[in-house]
């Protein structure tokens, strides 16, 4: 301590910033930035990993689905409903004025041009994520002829739009494209 006092390199007291203050601020700043930078890997390791993301597109052959039928496929480890609507179901969906709905969308908004019979939606209820009934053979379709979620009673119509119950949104339409007349690529 005595040595330190005798080799005093600082300016006299009361004359502003000492050289040591600069070193102090610089060192703490570098350490702080470095510390913050370590948060990036620590936080982003939690996000979906490359293999999970690699599974995020799927190709499905839809040639065997007759009008009025639906299948459940898997996209991002979640169910997808692919439904071949009948002319009557399409008419029912178009008979509703979209502006009166909770989540206003027309059937055309939810299908591809010229393919309005192919209704492709996630099979994930927008309330709390249960799988609605109505895609499988003999499952209850609810009073609007689409899907019915047994968990909390959300009812979807033939365009998979929310009509009744606690869910806030229509069943989500995932990104997809027709790679040929009979194959659809989801994701």
């Amino acid at each position, binding site marked *: 301590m005595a040595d330190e006092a005798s080799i005093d390199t600082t300016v006299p007291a009361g004359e502003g910033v000492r050289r040591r203050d600069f070193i102090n601020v610089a060192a703490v700043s570098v350490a702080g930035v470095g510390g913050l930078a370590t948060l990036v890997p620590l936080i982003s390791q939690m996000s979906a990993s490359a293999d*999970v993301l690699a599974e995020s597109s799927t190709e499905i052959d839809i040639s065997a689905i007759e009008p009025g039928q639906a299948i459940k496929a898997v996209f*991002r480890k979640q169910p997808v409903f692919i439904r071949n609507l009948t002319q009557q179901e399409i008419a029912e969906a178009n008979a509703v004025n979209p502006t009166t709905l909770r989540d206003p969308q027309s059937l055309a908004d939810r299908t591809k041009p010229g393919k309005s019979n192919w209704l492709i939606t996630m099979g994930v209820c927008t309330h709390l*994520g249960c*799988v609605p009934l109505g895609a499988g053979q003999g499952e209850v379709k609810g009073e609007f002829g689409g899907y019915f979620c*047994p968990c909390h009673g959300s009812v979807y119509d033939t365009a998979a739009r929310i009509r009744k119950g606690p869910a806030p949104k229509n069943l989500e339409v995932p990104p997809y494209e027709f790679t040929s007349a009979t194959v659809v690529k989801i994701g």
Partner: protein
Amino acid sequence: MSFPWAKHYKPSHPLMVWLDEKLPLPRFVYNAIGGGYPVPRNLNYFWNFGVLAGFCLVLQILTGVILAMHYAANSGVAFDSVEHIMRDVNWGWLLRYAHANGASAFFVVVYIHIFRGFFYSSYKAPREMIWLLGVVIFLLMMATAFMGYVLPWGQMSFWGAKVITGLFSAIPIVGEPLQQWLLGGFSPDNAALNRFFSLHFLLPFVIAAVIVLHIWALHIPGSSNPTGVEVKQESDTVPFHPYYTAKDGFGLGVFLLGYFAMVFFFPNALGHPDNYIAANPLSTPAHIVPEWYFWPFYAILRAFTADFLFIPAKLMGVLAMFSAILVWFFLPWLDTSPVRSGNYRPLFRKFFYLLVIDVLVLGYCGGSPAETKYVLISQIAATYYFLHFLVILPIVASVEKPQPLPFSITEAVLGTDEAATLSGASTAA
């Protein structure tokens, strides 16, 4: 700190004298739960539940660490490894049932501990910090229990994880990315299972650390008591050991009778049969409910069915559910009555029992299917729940005329207190 009359640790054996100089651990224990901690002499059996909660944590950590030796946190084999524990591991069934029912026992004990605090206003000055730390412990317990329930990777595990992490998707803008970040994917899968296992192992030790703070904060003012009158003199207290070690030991014996009755005779009574079906992401069980200890909060979550102002119903439910616990953080400043114990507060006491009934009703609704009548009852009960804390408690505190308090704990116990007579005489003179 302690009271001036607290006994001092005096090691007699030379080895203990040597240890006391180098690392005074025995002294620390003596002052914490030994003869060196003077405790009010009038504690009733509701004061056993803190020690019981500590016992439950030790029980859960012991059985949990052993289960982790046999369990595999991989979504491909997790369900089978739990069946392996149940069928193949020596005494595995006992360890798993002890752990699963231990969680329920822990919550029973902690709920009684919390409601003891409500009735005797244990949260009031100078004990606010003990209460705040207690609420933190409770939140950590809920997180730990939820993640533990996911580990067997049955249907209820999977859909519970899906629904609960789905709550975060209700948050505007950041909700969806936040949910994907929490799960490490688009729905619960191996990444989620692994991190839940890691955190389920870690959090109990965090809880243990917060309990150390909880007890540290307790030892500053000392324990409260059923009269709510602070300790004044030596005759108000007895040393923790042997008086309360004995009383807690007896309480522990009674607790273990009930606990092992559950473990041995009704090990699945509080579970769900659906969780003995392996997780299936394509099929939702018809009736999803959380474990019983979450039912009151689940009822509050589901009570919101219509949008409120600009807030969607789903988000309102989530906010209300979390607020139901967060409101406890403000309790020390909502209940402004200077009298602590419900025994001397006739009006408060009535509302306390109403709250107990209200929470039981919420619990019943939370465990029932989401039918209109249960939702309606939940809405009424949830409204009353918040009214109790935010409106009724402050009003009761200002309008109520409490009954006269005893002069001291000694007087409450013995009927007379020499010190009271003396001070009365001096006032008269």
